[in-house]
């Protein structure tokens, strides 16, 4: 009776379906995206404009009602150049994810930055700089999802 006869590691893939509720504030934000608008909510206590617009300010713990539009342009606060792959990855590498300070917003906005030459990983940092200006590239056909913005591209 040799050990090799029995598989010592069991392999399986588990797929579980979910339907996550967006909620009223999320719906309002995504309706904005559909109309090529990025909407935030202004907290009447701390005065911050929070993007994406949301139901409450976590710091002041008040409900937010004051919806404002912010620009679809901004400044790169920071970014990561993703050059590795993993199971369940939302897009094929390489790509850049960035935190963008949109004009008019007090919070960072997470999205892709594309339109960069990725052929030499060592040279990506020469093309993308913190503090660089970027602008949203909108999808032609928008459905009210975060991917209605395809990515942000560098602008002068």
């Amino acid at each position, binding site marked *: 009776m040799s050990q090799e006869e029995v598989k*010592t*590691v069991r392999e*399986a893939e*588990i797929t579980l379906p*979910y339907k*996550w509720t*967006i909620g009223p504030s*999320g719906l309002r934000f*995504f309706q904005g995206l559909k109309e090529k608008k990025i909407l935030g909510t202004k907290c009447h206590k701390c005065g911050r404009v*929070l993007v*994406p617009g*949301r139901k409450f300010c*976590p*710091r002041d713990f008040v409900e937010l009602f004051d919806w404002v539009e912010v620009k679809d342009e901004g400044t790169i*606060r*920071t*970014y*990561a*150049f*993703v*050059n*590795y792959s*993993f*199971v*369940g*990855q*939302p*897009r094929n*590498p390489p*790509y850049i*994810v*960035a*935190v963008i300070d949109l004009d008019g917003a007090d*919070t*960072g*906005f*997470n*999205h*892709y930055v594309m339109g960069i030459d990725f052929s030499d*990983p*060592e040279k*990506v*940092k020469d093309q993308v700089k*913190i*503090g660089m200006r970027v602008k949203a590239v909108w999808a032609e056909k928008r459905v009210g*999802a*975060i*991917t209605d913005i395809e990515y942000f591209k560098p602008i002068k």
Partner: protein
Amino acid sequence: MVRKVAVVGVGQTVHGKRREVSFPELVHEAVKRALDDANLTIEEIEAVVSGSMPAPMEGVNAPHLYWGDDAAGAVLKPNMRVATCGTTGMSVAQSGYYHVASGMFDVVLAVGAEKQYEGEAQGTMNTVGDAHFSRPFVPGAPGVFAQQSNEYLHRYDVPEEKIRLAAAEVSVRNHLDAFDNPYAHIKIKIKVDDVLNSRIICYPIRLLDVCPQSDGACAIIYASEERARKITDTPAWVKGVAYCGNEYWSSDNDSVENPGTIEVARRAYKMAGITNPLKQLDVAEVYNPFTFQEMMHYECFGFCKPGEAYKLVEEGIVSRSGELPCDPSGGVLSTNPIGATAMVRVVEAALQVTGKAGAHQIPDAETAFSNGLGGANHLISVMILSRTP
């Protein structure tokens, strides 16, 4: 006053690829070692806390029901699961502490474990983001922490190269220190250039800036003052405990001078009566899954001023012979069974202040700092242990 609580026993498995044992068997190994260390039987354990990484990593829902009961010795005892991503090990350790501090229990076991080779760590990390707004932009832990690292590199009036070089030194040091830790996973002798020339995983993070994935388990036994003195001559007293969360939308916060990270240390220091961490702490086990994180932690924890972490590295202050040795165990950079990782920091702190750290002992260490970090920089935790109550 609040009740005094001490660590009276610790146990960890050899971390690494542990294909030969099942999850419960791995956990059992660490728990037995902790019981042996404290010279206690399972009957003397009054309650158990357990935790691991988000359950989708294990492919088992509510894993405390599976391995947390039987393997951790919780059958017919109080048991709960505390799971908070990377801070899990620390959240479990702190829950064990509060079990005793509450006065409800005198002897309590805390267990953290992970088998990273069984699941998909980055695929699981991706699910930490909500499906509507965030998930497309959560490229696993390296992606999240690379953004933070990049911001750090460009925050201060310090040449990027200086910080980059210091981070490489951090990698060299941790991987070398791991040789003196019998439980560590990745032990390699590397040079600064090896780090700088390693492949870009997620700019600015390179392959040798990144922690490994390990299988491993870790256990701590806590006791009340009265019991602790009967159980051991060398208790490690819990002097400071703190835990802090940032906002869910991580980009709402400054990720470099991070409010949660700064606040958590402030609270732990206050409880432990520490006003000058660099002077009063003898050793620190900071949670360093990526090299830059270790340096940002120095700053947020007040080991130095913002932007000056590279000096601590350059001047050898955080080396084993320095004023405040950091991660003499080899840190997370050498060993990372996620659900146990932050608890290993506490265990290492306990080993140091009780003089049981063996080859990586810091001489005369009296007070030790440990911390954990979880989510996409969402949750930060600190525990300070001391030789004296």
